[in-house]
């Protein structure tokens, strides 16, 4: 009965009502899955960017020589032309053995006969910026060299389109989960309005407006969603950390503290959006139902 006690304001709607715990668990699970979907999308995107960056600044020049006798000479003049064309790039001819080993996946792990024709390969790596394959082949062809320049753009395009589908999938899942959060909140508000009918009728009697009562539901749903989503998203982050450490998800996982921090910021954003969606859905549902009830009365 101390005046200190009187200073703490009790919430007008009870914190714990029927089913409020299962509701919290549902919200938690949805937030957990939404968090994973977000982390997965961001990880896939990051991995694709990384791979494509790596691919775009390397190219493989394949020398299409007619006979093993001229191969050495062709290799030399190709190297010279490349060096003058791209003075800042790292240009490495692959040894015969290395080239040979690249063929193994296609012809099996048997020792290749010495006389099988193996193309001469040169890798070109720029420290920054993409490599223009067309320019290289034009320059080499002008020198009379028959080459095939592969700047991996086909790969890069494949990676990009695959990643786009993956990210789209993740975002689709995320949207579905947020929509489910909305639906759960609407459902919970409907149930809450009838479960708390007595309280609401007292509030209406003492002159509370629909807006005032709706705000109570916004607060109730918002608090519930914030708690549920904080736990769910927190668990998603821990789960992701575990997967990353155990390398279950390979390059999609976290590889640097920077990634972790950026993703955590995104997760916090997701947390706020999740809670906002639930709170607003509750407020709008409450307002609509209260107005309908008032019309009926």
């Amino acid at each position: 009965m101390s005046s200190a006690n009187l200073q703490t304001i009790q919430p007008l709607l009870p914190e714990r009502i029927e089913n409020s715990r299962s509701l919290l668990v549902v919200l938690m699970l949805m937030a957990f899955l939404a968090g994973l979907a977000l982390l997965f999308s961001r990880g896939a995107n990051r991995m694709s960017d990384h791979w494509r960056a790596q691919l775009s600044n390397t190219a493989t020049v394949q020398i299409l020589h007619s006979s093993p006798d001229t191969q050495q000479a062709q290799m030399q003049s190709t190297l010279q032309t490349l060096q003058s064309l791209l003075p800042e790039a790292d240009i490495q001819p692959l040894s015969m053995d290395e080239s040979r080993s690249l063929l193994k996946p296609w012809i099996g792990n048997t020792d290749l006969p010495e006389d099988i024709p193996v193309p001469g390969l040169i890798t070109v790596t720029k420290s920054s910026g993409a490599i223009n394959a067309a320019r290289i082949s034009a320059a080499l062809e002008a020198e009379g060299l028959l080459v095939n320049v592969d700047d991996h753009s086909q790969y890069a395009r494949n990676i990009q389109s695959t990643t786009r589908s993956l990210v789209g999938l993740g975002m689709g899942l995320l949207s579905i989960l947020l929509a489910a959060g909305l639906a759960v909140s609407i459902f919970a508000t409907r149930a809450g309005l009838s479960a708390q009918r007595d309280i609401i009728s007292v509030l209406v009697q003492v002159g509370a407006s629909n807006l005032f009562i709706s705000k109570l539901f916004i607060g109730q749903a918002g608090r519930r969603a914030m708690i549920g989503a904080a736990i769910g998203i927190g668990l998603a982050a821990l789960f992701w950390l575990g997967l990353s450490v155990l390398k279950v998800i390979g390059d999609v996982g976290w590889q640097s503290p920077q990634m972790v921090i950026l993703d955590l910021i995104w997760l916090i954003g997701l947390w706020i959006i999740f809670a906002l969606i639930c709170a607003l859905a509750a407020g709008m549902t409450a307002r609509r139902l209260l107005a309908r009830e008032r019309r009926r009365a």
Partner: protein
Amino acid sequence: MSSPEAISGQELVRFQRVGLRYGRGPEVLSDVNLELPRGSFTFLTGPSGAGKSTLLKLCYLHLAPSRGLINLFGQDVALLSPAEQQALKRRIGVVLQDFRLIDHLSVFENVALPLRVAGQPRASYADDVVELLQWVGLGHRMQALPPTLSGGEQQRAAIARAVIAKPDLLIADEPTGNVDPVIGRRLIRLFTEMNRMGTTVLIATHDVTTIRELDARVLRIENSHVFKGLDPDKPGNTL
């Protein structure tokens, strides 16, 4: 909202040919004409099931009449928007027969509810609530939850809630039904004090002794009609 005082004369409440039926049932109230002058103190009596609670519900906007006109604070209530109705309710204090306290809120919070709903800051009313609770004898039960109170204690909390916002109109349904005569007299005194300070009071009661003790207006419901004064046919009723 326009100023209600500007519109009408002296009546705070006016019924004109009001009828009320529940659903498709018979009319519980028919052709009711009544006026509560501003600052009046009125008892409403009649046998059980006569329609006292029903008439009060019409006064505090819980029910809308099936027919007829109800004027509150000079305004035709049928023309009010929901928001305006709620604003009017904040000027009416109500004590219900079944108290209607909120179970998970302390007695203090229950009593402070009208002020909280009206958007007043806690610091502006905390002392008033404590003082009022002490006055109705609940000073030691301020932090208790309503389900742990006796019937009489709940009734006193409900009355405190009805009067805390100093309403213009106070409506009470059997407010002394659950308390001993000493407390009952004290509560009636609370109502007469409020009335002296300008609140219009309407109390439904069976308690003829209380009615006699106070020289107040009396309305009586009989056969779904409202009459003035106590029943003259019953011995001892001289009003």
